[in-house]
């Protein structure tokens, strides 16, 4: 009788404890505005940080670069251009509707692939013969409903305007983030300052030096992770021959350049093969995006490294940078192409890829990419280099100290946020 009473009392007490719903953790992410609608296609605003939280891709990327399951619970590659996947059991969009083969087909419609279903398995095959692995990592799965999009990720958008993007976790998990709010500020400086002042719990840092501002700020901690984009010197394909480009690539001391600009926090890319051709005798001008002080410094370093061939250093507005990339009519231009994981090369350098901003085309590279041989593709890129990869700088963010396991990357900047655990 006594034990039964004790049990009853304990049960009542346990029943009366505040639920985790009451202590839902809300994370405010400071970004530069204005924000645009969150769509599965790459939004050209800071809304992009939230993309992976709402829209899943079939595969995700492990820390070592290997593909791991995403929306696809099981997967296998028949060959580089064909994959067979099984969707996660019970996978649903945020409105509760199940994710179907038709939704996968619709989501990959623009990527020139064939999706077929047989006994619960989907076969995805590239019509052009291109490797599908990068696509499965990169392409978000969505469902179009009216003017909006639904995703199958753990969060859904509950409110949005130019200054706020509020996302709510569909099924709350005790000890994990329940709500995320992207809060937009007019300038990077405001974004940074407001985070320091306590108006936000997370912001992405553009420069390692900025982390010094957070020394002694117990509320936040600096989190570092490997980068996925390299700092690279793009070479104008219209102006520079393959021999010129190879000579330039062989001439530039990438280690030294990386150290000059980033210190020891930049991972140097694999070396280009030795080359005995001389760099062009004419002076090569180099452009960079205005107000990007790291790139300005890199441009100065490249000019010095080129010696007599080093020309003027030009700070260019974004429109000019894009115009030059499109026209391929420039000497040198500092860019930040995606280089990790290696299969990303299929996105960036495959002929006709929407992500191939330099409009680079090389049949040997394409063949290697189609074969899924990323190392050979890189080798072929070295033989006909569109860019000189200098190094891959680390990525940084300052994140609320209550988050126990924050990470940046490994692929998208804040893709692991739904998995972060919050200390009590």
């Amino acid at each position: 009788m006594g034990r039964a009473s004790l049990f009853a009392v304990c049960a009542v007490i346990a029943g009366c404890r505040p639920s985790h719903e009451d202590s839902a953790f809300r994370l405010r992410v400071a970004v530069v505005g204005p924000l645009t609608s969150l769509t599965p296609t790459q939004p050209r605003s800071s809304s992009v940080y939230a993309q992976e939280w709402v829209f899943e891709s079939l595969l995700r990327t492990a820390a070592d670069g290997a593909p791991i399951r995403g929306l696809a619970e099981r997967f296998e590659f028949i060959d580089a251009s064909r994959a067979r996947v099984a969707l996660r059991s019970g996978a649903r969009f945020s409105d509760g509707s199940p994710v179907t083969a038709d939704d996968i087909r619709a989501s990959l419609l623009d990527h020139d692939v064939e999706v077929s279903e047989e006994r619960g398995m989907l076969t995805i095959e590239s019509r052009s013969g291109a490797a599908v692995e990068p696509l499965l990592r990169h392409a978000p799965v969505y469902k179009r409903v009216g003017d909006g999009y639904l995703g199958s990720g753990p969060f859904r958008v509950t409110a949005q305007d130019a200054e706020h993007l509020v996302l709510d976790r569909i099924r709350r998990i005790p000890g994990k983030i329940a709500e995320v709010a992207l809060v937009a500020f007019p300038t990077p400086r405001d974004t940074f300052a407001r985070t320091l002042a306590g108006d936000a719990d997370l912001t992405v840092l553009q420069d390692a030096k900025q982390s010094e501002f957070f020394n002694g700020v117990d509320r936040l901690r600096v989190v570092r992770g490997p980068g996925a984009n390299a700092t690279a010197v793009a070479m104008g394909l219209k102006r520079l021959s393959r021999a010129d480009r190879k000579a330039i690539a062989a001439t530039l001391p990438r280690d030294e350049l990386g150290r000059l600009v980033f210190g020891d926090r930049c991972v140097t890319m694999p070396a280009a093969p030795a080359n005995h051709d001389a760099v062009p005798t004419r002076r090569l001008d180099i452009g960079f995006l205005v107000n990007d002080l790291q790139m300005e410094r890199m441009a100065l370093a490249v000019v010095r490294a080129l010696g007599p061939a080093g020309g003027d250093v030009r700070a260019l507005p974004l429109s000019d940078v894009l115009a030059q990339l499109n026209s391929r009519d420039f000497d040198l231009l500092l860019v930040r192409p995606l280089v990790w994981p290696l299969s990303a090369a299929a996105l960036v350098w495959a002929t006709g890829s929407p992500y191939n901003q330099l409009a680079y085309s090389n049949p040997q590279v394409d063949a290697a990419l189609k074969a899924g041989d990323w190392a050979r593709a890189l080798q072929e890129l070295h033989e006909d280099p569109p860019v000189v990869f200098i190094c891959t700088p680390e990525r940084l963010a300052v994140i609320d100290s209550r988050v126990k396991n924050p990470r940046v990357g490994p692929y998208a900047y804040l893709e692991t946020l739904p998995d972060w655990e919050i200390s009590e």
Partner: protein
Amino acid sequence: MKEESSRDILARRLVVLVAGSGLLIALVGLFAIALLRRNAERTSQAALAVIAEQAASRIGAYLAHQREMLHAVGGVVAGIPDAERRLAQIALDAPSLGRVMLLTPRTPTDQLPSRLTPPDVIAALSGREVASPLYFRDDLTPAMDVCVPVGGGRTAAVCATLDLLELQRQVQRIQIGQTGYALAFDSEGRLLAAGAGTMRAAALTGEPVAESPLASKVARGERVPNEFRGGLGEDVLAGWARLTDPRWTIVVEEPKREALAPMRTALLTLSSVAVAALLLAIALGIAQSRRALETMEIEERWRTAGRIATGISHDLGHRLAILQSTAALAEANDAAYLPLIRDNLRAEMATLKKFVADFADLSREVSTEHFVPLDLNAFAQSIGRVATPHAEKAGVEIEVKPAPEEAWVKGDRYLLERAALNLVTNAIEASPPGGQVSVEVAQQNGVATLKVVDRGPGIAPERIPRIFDAFKSTKRTGAHVGMGLPNVRRIVVAHGGDTAVESEVGKGSVFSINLPTQPKPS
């Protein structure tokens, strides 16, 4: 109601003395604490000022070094043909100089250092060194545009965007205690660098902080307080320092609670020990006093017992001598002695009865249970009547003089009668035959007085101070054992009153019983 004993009075005085000493020590301690606290504050402020001065000195030296480097560059650049290109490259080897450029009259406006004003540019081209205020670049690095003239008489200047991240580092590195920090301000009170993390936002946005007005005053050479509410909303102790070029101010702050924490801990420990010692001393003092008083009381009891024994043995010895004489007369078997023998025995019996009665009075405790309202006028009349037979026997006249109004008191009627009759009997016995004894009642200021006045021989002045002490009677005749007046005093004091005596040798004496008046019973 019991009479407060002299032992209690003495004990109370001792306690008051010890407690008073303790209080005095405590007051001295409090004063010492206040003094120590003030001293600790001053010491902390002085230490903070030293740190601020050191920081200002380091920052000044750093800036001077940057300028010297720029001057050195300006000195050699004049003769170099592709100076502009070379200057741009300097930033790679001397990152603290930031972007370095050659300023000439032909330099396009959009390539000028961003924070130099047109007058600055004109001044720089005319050979003067100019510097912009500190600002934050797009990568949020603190910077300052500085131009110095080039050598060789050229109309040009070398300009650099000094990277002042090191300044920020120097300020951030200053950590005082657990949470103390440093702040750097420009001459307008704008925050430039902050050791306190959350205040750094104000440096970026240019928002004023709590210290801004003080900082601008310091920059103007004015005095400012070293204790105020800091930018983090906490009371701080501070030390200020000033740079002359640029006119920046450095303040080093430490939260007051933290700065004074060691002093508080020390004082708390000291105070606790002092209070404990004080309490121990008081406790020991009281204990020792009690022991001393108990010893004194025992000694006093023995002395009293001795006095009683002396008195009793003296009086009983006298009585015994008379009885022995009487017995000797009886043994003579002479009938002629019989009247004498009878008178002696009667007298001695009366004396011994009186002796026993006196002791019986002494043994009766005063208790409020026996208190009744008494009109002192009626009481005096009653005393007069009771004493008249004895007075007539002695040939003395008793006169009662009541007060004009009723004088009400409260008391044990029996004991008060015993006290009053004792005084009247003494007065009768002191009066010569044919004399007069007055029993007078008066009332004034809440005190009712019963006076017994005689015109006897009076009392020698030296006896008056101790006349109410036990066994001090000098009569030693008849039934006088020296317990009468002490008993009177005991009774009156137990009623909340007191006794008094006035006497003049040869003229008589006045014995008074003073009692607190009471309202007339309804």
